[in-house]
């Protein structure tokens, strides 16, 4: 194909949008609505994941050791634990720290209650490791690993939190996957329908092109470019809008429901857009391309 033909097709793609303003606007609006919905949905999923992830990071198991285990041995075991892929971090809690934490937690302002113990640490044998998980699903495996270490006396775990988070996470992923598939199907169908209308409106032009001796590629290219442009414009508009709306909504939620401040930490918009921007653009362009390519190919075969 000549370069001049290629540029001619691009110009025609732009002109096609102008020639069929109403259809093009309808397509762009459809695409924009879909990408906006996708953005909204993605932002909810991403934030929920982020919240679940933060909660997961707070889930830890506590590993206690036999009385006769030396501090060096405990620390060696701790180093081994840190090397595991499913371990986010492992924090050593010395007997002194354990006792200080206990006093803080149980005696609070009544520190005089602890005075009876003086320098005698009742938790002298309670050196332990708090092991934080990377993913809550791996808790059972890690617990069984720890229990099989001869020096380990006891492993304390939190079953309820782990299981709840694990099932919420799974539900969220299945739900999001389902909605994304439905959205994709709907959007391809709608864009294909819009391009079909566009092709039908210009069926005379296509017929003339074919009589004159246009190759399929020449007939197809302006329509495909039109589809890509519609997809691109239809993606850029909601992505720009959503960028500003997201920040405003986060600020609004945090101000209106100040209680959430301590519980929920929303993702910054830049973090959401790191994935949403390329995926949204690709989705718009991809749907525009596939929708127009398939539709015009069907028409050329007819």
């Amino acid at each position, binding site marked *: *194909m*000549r370069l*001049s*033909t290629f540029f*001619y097709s691009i110009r025609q793609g732009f002109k096609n949008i102008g*020639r069929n303003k109403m259809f093009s606007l309808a397509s762009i609006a459809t695409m924009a609505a879909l990408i906006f919905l996708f953005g909204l949905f993605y932002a909810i999923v991403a934030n929920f994941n982020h919240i679940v992830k933060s909660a997961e990071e707070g889930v830890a198991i506590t590993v206690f050791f036999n009385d006769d285990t030396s501090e060096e041995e405990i620390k060696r075991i701790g180093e081994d634990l840190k090397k595991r892929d499913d371990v986010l971090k492992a924090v050593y809690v010395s007997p002194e720290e354990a006792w200080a934490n206990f006093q803080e937690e149980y005696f609070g302002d009544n520190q005089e209650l602890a005075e009876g113990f003086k320098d005698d640490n009742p938790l002298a044998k309670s050196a332990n490791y708090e092991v934080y998980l990377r993913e809550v699903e791996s808790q059972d495996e890690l617990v069984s690993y720890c229990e099989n270490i001869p020096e380990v006396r006891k492993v304390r775990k939190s079953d309820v939190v782990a299981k709840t988070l694990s099932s919420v996470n799974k539900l969220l992923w299945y739900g999001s996957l389902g909605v994304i598939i439905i959205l994709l199907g709907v959007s391809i169908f709608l864009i294909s329908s819009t391009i079909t209308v566009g092709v039908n409106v210009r069926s*005379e*032009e296509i*017929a*003339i*092109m*074919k*009589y*004159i*001796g*246009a*190759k*399929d590629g*020449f007939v197809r290219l302006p329509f495909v470019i039109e589809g890509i442009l519609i997809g691109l414009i239809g993606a850029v508009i909601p992505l720009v809008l959503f960028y500003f709306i997201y920040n405003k909504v986060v600020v609004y939620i945090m101000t209106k429901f100040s209680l959430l401040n301590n519980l929920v930490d929303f993702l910054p918009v830049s973090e959401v857009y790191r994935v949403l921007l390329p995926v949204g653009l690709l989705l718009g362009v991809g749907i525009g391309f596939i929708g127009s390519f398939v539709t015009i190919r069907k028409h050329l075969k007819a």
Partner: protein
Amino acid sequence: MSLIEFRDVSERYIKGATPAIDHLTFDIDNGEFVFITGDSGSGKSTLIKLLLRELTPTSGSITVAGMDLGKMKHRKIPLYRRKLGVVFQEFRLLKDRNIYENVAFAQRVTEVKPKVIKKKVPAALSLVGLAQKYKSFPDELSGGEQQRVAIARALINEPALLLADEPTGNLDPSNSWEIMHLLEEANERGTTVVVVTHNQEIVNEMKKRVITLNKGVIISDEQGGEYK
């Protein structure tokens, strides 16, 4: 030498139905001017569709400029059609483009260099007497003028064969004669012209070869013939 060869060509739209064209055999030589006439349902439109390679014959063979249309692959059809010029009764111009763009369109489709297009389009429009109206849109022109634009578009790629399907069907007598003169001029410059028409007066006065069809069969084929 024959430009078009029909050999025992039949065309059935539905299996078992009466053929639209029934065992046609004829030749059209390079540089000829031929009228194809006949009543509605005689097979004229089918014949044009076969020549445009919109249809392939149910049986028999059609050869145009040495190319067997029945065996032609889909991707070769555009290259074949570039050797043809086509003029329709309804003009079939692109209404959202001006006259210049309509004629240039035929060249853009065949990927002619932009420089050549700029030279050839004004020349083609001059040939049909519309050089001054190159900025006008089809709806701003009379029927006769629109058909002249269609002829300019059909001739700009210098086709070996010009097919005209009822080119005067929507025109008054004076415009009809103008169009026929343009087709005759193209023929004098060497283009083979095949005109499907109902226009008795034109056929009888032009004294060209006339092939008359009836129910898909040739009932007469005469040089300097008359409308039957």
